[in-house]
């Protein structure tokens, strides 16, 4: 479970999985706590200027302590019109998105598919075994024309990963 929360934070989950986890998060306060502390850890590790300390509990307590004001609701006659207008705007926005996706057509379909696989994290190359392929490749790669022997640095640099 912890792994999944962490994966969710990193945006590595597929939509379905992400939604399942989010549902569970909503229902389970312990997991919410975990979610918060993961973010806190992340913030501290990144040494970000605004560390997100958990003040939500404190705020919650303060809110509870606030006196409840009992007064009749002010009636707003514009409400219905606003609702209709915003509904119309949403429909228009949806139509625009739909139209744009039609315009882009088949071109973007593979792009979308690729976007999903972008989060694949390759392992660093093992130092042995693949050097032979790298060397064979480098010699024929057009990079050699431009970079000269500097292009071979990919093989020369591999040592540090052993250590």
């Amino acid at each position: 479970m912890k792994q999944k929360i962490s994966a969710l934070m990193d945006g590595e989950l597929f939509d379905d999985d992400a939604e399942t986890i989010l549902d569970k998060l909503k229902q389970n306060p312990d997991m919410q706590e975990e979610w918060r502390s993961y973010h806190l850890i992340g913030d501290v590790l990144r040494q970000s200027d605004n560390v997100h300390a958990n003040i939500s509990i404190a705020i919650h307590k303060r809110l509870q302590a606030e006196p409840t004001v009992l007064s009749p609701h002010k009636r707003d006659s514009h409400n219905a019109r606003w609702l209709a207008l915003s509904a119309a705007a949403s429909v228009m926005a949806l139509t625009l998105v739909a139209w744009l996706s039609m315009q882009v057509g088949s071109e973007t379909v593979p792009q979308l598919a690729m976007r999903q696989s972008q989060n694949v994290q390759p392992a660093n190359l093992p130092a042995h075994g693949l050097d032979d392929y790298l060397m064979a490749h480098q010699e024929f790669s057009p990079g050699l024309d431009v970079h000269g022997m500097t292009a071979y640095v990919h093989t020369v640099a591999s040592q540090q990963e052993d250590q």
Partner: protein
Amino acid sequence: MKARFALTLVLNFTAVPAFADIGKQVGLDWPQIIAFATHKTNYSGTFVYQYNGHMESARITHISDQSGEHEKLESMDGPRRAFIRNNDKVWWYSGDKKAVQVERRYNSKSFPALQPELLSALNENYLIYTAEQVRISGFDTQAIVFQPKDTLRYTHKMWAHMDSGLLLKAAVLNERKEIVEQYTFIQLNIGGEIERTHMMPGQSTASSEQQSNFATPSEISEQAATSEWKVAAVPVGFKKIMEKRRPLHGKNTDVIHFVFSDGLAGISVFIETSGNNVEKRLGLSSRGAIHVYSKIKDDYLVTVVGEIPPRSVIQIADSVRHNGQ
């Protein structure tokens, strides 16, 4: 989530024309100047190479004279690893192990001029423009950007010395403008007398016993017995520049080697009979901008190596077909 995809899609769509107005578009002069400088100038220097969160330094020495090109690249960190090249011959030294002769490609005579096919490919696949002028390690440089016209390849940015054309820095960036790898010279001597003593194999760098060669590169057969294999989904703009059966160091049997180029990035596809212990090597791995993906196809091991994004190497490996399939 769907809405976010739609938004990304809209943003992508509107962002496309944006690169037309950055920097000054240049022709193919700069690539030519850089290639000429790289192969025809005498220089020696130290550079820092950054990739996958690592940083290492290496030293390069290059001499071009009547007898041709001589160069050496050696690691400055960790155990000694070095390449030494004398025209058509390249040796690879790794720690205390014996030297290995690496295959040298044939068209070295055409250096330093870039081949016309390569230049037209460059022009087709990249928008080439000049960016900022900055000082790097004491040299005035001009930045040149090679921006791909699609997302199938990386952006390359190079900083060339304004006087000599030598590269002081080069970076590879992904479509989010994040640096995938880069090297920067921290010290460089151009021209003049370059220390030659370490250049020739067989002098201070290798004793005679170390010179035994495992590979016999000159015997690589050009036979086109490889037509039984097909790489179906090569990214747009990549043209096949080689296809042959060849020995590969460390292999008992020959491998089939395809090479594709888009003018700046290269893709190699290796096909060989799958032996034992291949499992641990399957899947995706990377070193800076080079990604490697290996998979089993029937009884064969398919390995794709290229300076292209991970999804492209996977896509290529998945498209390798045996004849008739």
